[in-house]
């Protein structure tokens, strides 16, 4: 496959960036999207040019590090992470526009790499349960109803990639927030801090500069883990409950 790539290039966080056009030849349809970018970077290296910076780590769809806006869709046209997207999803001769996640709380560091530590701070503000250190407690000593355990588990599949923010026209991280709130709030271990957690995490979310949710559903369509919209309803319900409790 021969492709035309339009890629956002930006020297560093303080420089202005622009879209630049590149050509790549003989791309195998079996390559992953990131391998295709690796090929481009080999080409750029040989020509003595600066390779395109992008994030990746596990390359097996579980870490959430790779984050590219591909032709206006977070992680591209398939419901998966960028690393698990293959070139067979494109056609020979295609023009592919590749941009970084666009949200002011996710500043661009270089080219396609953004700083997502805003998510880390949201987790730090309340996305945890407090437990005594020492030997691990017996796993089955606290019973969790199966339906709640399954819902918590499904919410916990959120890998914090930020596709929800990237896809949201309001730059809201509500799906991410909702996933964490549902994950911890459905389990018995999450109850003692349930009210304070939601208030602190929503407060941090707002403080970071993410927008509010308008329930349009672009986030859930972009989510590589298919986290459903009902986690946002859960988030809203938990905040309303905390409000009732005077937090």
């Amino acid at each position, binding site marked *: 496959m021969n492709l035309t790539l*339009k890629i956002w290039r930006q020297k560093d966080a303080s420089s202005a960036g622009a*879209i630049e056009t590149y050509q790549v030849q003989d791309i195998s349809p079996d390559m992953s999207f990131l391998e295709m970018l690796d090929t481009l970077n080999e080409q750029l290296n040989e020509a003595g040019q600066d390779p395109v910076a992008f994030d990746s780590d596990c390359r097996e769809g579980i*870490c*959430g*590090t790779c984050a590219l*806006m591909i*032709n*206006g*869709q977070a992680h591209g046209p398939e419901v998966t992470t960028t690393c698990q997207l293959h070139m067979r999803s494109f056609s020979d001769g295609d023009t592919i*526009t590749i*941009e970084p996640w*666009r*949200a*002011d709380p996710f500043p661009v560091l270089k080219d396609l*790499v953004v*700083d*997502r*530590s*805003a*998510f*880390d*701070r949201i987790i*730090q*503000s309340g996305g945890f349960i407090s437990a005594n250190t020492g030997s691990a407690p017996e796993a089955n000593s606290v019973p969790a109803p199966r339906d709640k355990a399954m819902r918590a588990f499904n919410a916990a599949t959120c890998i*914090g990639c*930020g596709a929800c923010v990237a896809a949201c*026209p*309001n*730059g*809201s991280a509500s799906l991410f927030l909702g996933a964490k709130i549902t994950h911890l709030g459905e389990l018995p271990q999450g109850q003692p801090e349930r009210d304070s957690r939601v*208030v602190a995490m*929503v*407060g*941090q979310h*707002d*403080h*970071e*500069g993410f*927008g*509010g*949710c*308008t*329930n*349009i559903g*672009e986030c*859930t*369509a*972009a989510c590589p883990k298919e986290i*459903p919209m*009902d986690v*946002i*309803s859960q988030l*809203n*319900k*938990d*905040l*309303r409950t*905390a*409000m009732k409790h005077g*937090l």
Partner: protein
Amino acid sequence: MTCVATQLSNRTLVKGSRSTRSTIALKLTMAISGLVFLGYLILHMYGNLKVFAGHDAFNEYAHHLREFGAPMLPYEGLLWIVRVVLLVALVAHVWSALVLTGRARKARTAKYTVKKNIASSLSSRTMRWGGLAIFIFVVWHLLHFTIGKVNPDGGPTNDPYNLLVDSFDVWWMTVIYLLAMLALGMHLHHGTWSAAQTLGLTNTAKSRATAKRVGWVVAIVIAGGFALVPLSVLFGIVTK
């Protein structure tokens, strides 16, 4: 979790967050004030449909609205209570919308060169402009039927039924009202579902599907119910 090797950010952990100061509190304000409007629209539509009961029934209804609750309430007492409630809801709805829109704009100052919408409905993406359109229409509507009582046919304005029929005999008047009902229907379609979601009533796939269906039903029944009156006048079903 993302473990981006990152420069030390100058952003910090915020202390002392309050639920009432959050974006979600603003969303709740939008949802509740929106439901107040929804309740009013149902009552208003019920009154409008009285037109099919004929001249006398319609005018009697309009007159009785003003004497409702007498002698406990003064003349037009109920109407003024409703007006105050609506005005409070309007201020709350518009104010939260403005703050939330401002936040959303600030959350993405650098735009994408290419951005596709995959899942969102047209009505969900036009809530802000649609809301503005409905606001402008309401101002016009109040000038037309409540404050100004404009009769485009030049006839008398003290007879509500005749004023209505005279107004919708004019084609462009009907067009304005029908366009407004389209905007209202779209706003209600997304707004109803969005309010349910914001109030935390859609925690399962089933309740989410139900809320979306309710959004459609509310939009079609209310926008359709209102549109029935000018259309009936235009097609000569309702005459003087």
